[in-house]
């Protein structure tokens, strides 16, 4: 495939045509903070705004989110200019006021010199635990799992992920991919004995025939068998005992 040459912080880098700036920076050991993008999820990214960088080209400069900005020949990316730092601090300060209990956000804010936001922290009915409403959980459920048990509900200030009518979903398979992908750990998933609880629904877990540990929801086995045609006996043993 066609190779593209451009620079990040003055360092010359090479990339493939369909890559984005964040990906290439990571491959080259250049750190750009980010929350909402996940390389496994094609449509992810662009919503948390933490990965902002300066993109210079043809004598013009734009602030862009590096996680979904496609690489171009001759592009000059700058990740730590005073402007980028200032804007990023502003974003993190707002985010910290919104989700004061999300450890990742607290840590990122601290790295950028913010201990306490100047804005009023969310509480009471506005309190939304750790969720930054990036939508990654919804994208994972739709694109990777293929179930679409959850969606982003409401809009603006009240936007949040959830199941229809906030009732236990009829289609959720309890795989927990949403909770796993969530950058801030905002989705509650509880495994107790052979039961898993997520999105207000309880799932019976399948037990490994060797070590006796419950390791996968029965509903997820049903889903995998149905969509891939894999043999059910494959799931007798957990991945550790296979």
């Amino acid at each position: 495939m066609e190779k593209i040459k451009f620079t990040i912080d003055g360092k010359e880098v090479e990339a493939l045509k369909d890559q984005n700036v964040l990906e290439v920076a990571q491959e080259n050991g250049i750190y750009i903070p980010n929350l909402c993008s996940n390389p496994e999820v094609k449509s992810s990214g662009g919503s948390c705004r933490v990965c902002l960088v300066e993109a210079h080209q043809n004598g013009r400069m734009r602030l862009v989110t590096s996680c979904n900005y496609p690489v171009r020949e001759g592009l000059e990316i700058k990740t730590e200019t005073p402007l980028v730092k200032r804007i990023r601090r502003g974003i993190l300060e707002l985010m910290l006021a919104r989700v004061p209990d999300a450890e990742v956000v607290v840590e990122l804010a601290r790295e950028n010199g913010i201990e306490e936001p100047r804005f009023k922290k969310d509480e009471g009915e506005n309190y939304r635990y750790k969720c930054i409403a990036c939508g990654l959980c919804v994208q994972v459920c739709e694109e990777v799992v293929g179930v679409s048990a959850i969606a982003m509900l409401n809009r603006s200030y009240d936007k949040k992920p959830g199941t229809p009518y906030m009732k236990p979903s009829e289609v959720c398979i309890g795989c927990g991919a949403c909770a796993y992908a969530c950058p801030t750990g905002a989705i509650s998933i509880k495994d107790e004995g052979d039961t898993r609880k997520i999105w207000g629904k309880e799932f019976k877990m399948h037990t490994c025939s060797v070590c006796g540990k419950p390791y996968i929801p029965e509903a997820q086995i049903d889903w995998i068998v149905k969509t891939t045609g894999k043999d059910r006996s494959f799931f007798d043993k957990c991945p550790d005992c296979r």
Partner: protein
Amino acid sequence: MAVDINQIDEIISSHEKSEESLLSILQSFQRKLNYVPEEGIKRLSESFDVPESRIYAMATFYKALSLVPRGRHTIKVCMGTACHLKGGGLILEAIERELGVERGGTTDDMRFSLETVNCVGACAMAPVVVVDDEYHGHASSSNVHSILKKYE
């Protein structure tokens, strides 16, 4: 309130069967049934093969769609700058007391739904109360009773 499944199916089948008609079907639900019923979302999801969560998300996104039955009449109390200064808040409170519902709610007899809006573009008549499509200017907490009286 029981919903008529036949009526739901009728609305669905009167539209073209493509994802683009989802929103106009939801609008038809709103127009004909006064809300978007849960059964309607389920039916749509089945017949269009679109995840229920996505249709539910659409219904929560648009202010024009309601997930609970709305009253026969909609009262909109203007909270815009001019109306705010002329006492829109007091009028809202007066209506809340008169009907016994909070903003966003519907009276038990399904007569009224109470909403706030941020400007209806009639600032010269401030404070304004809009019932259905009728504008009532220079409203006051003492004349809301007579404004609402004529709606049944």
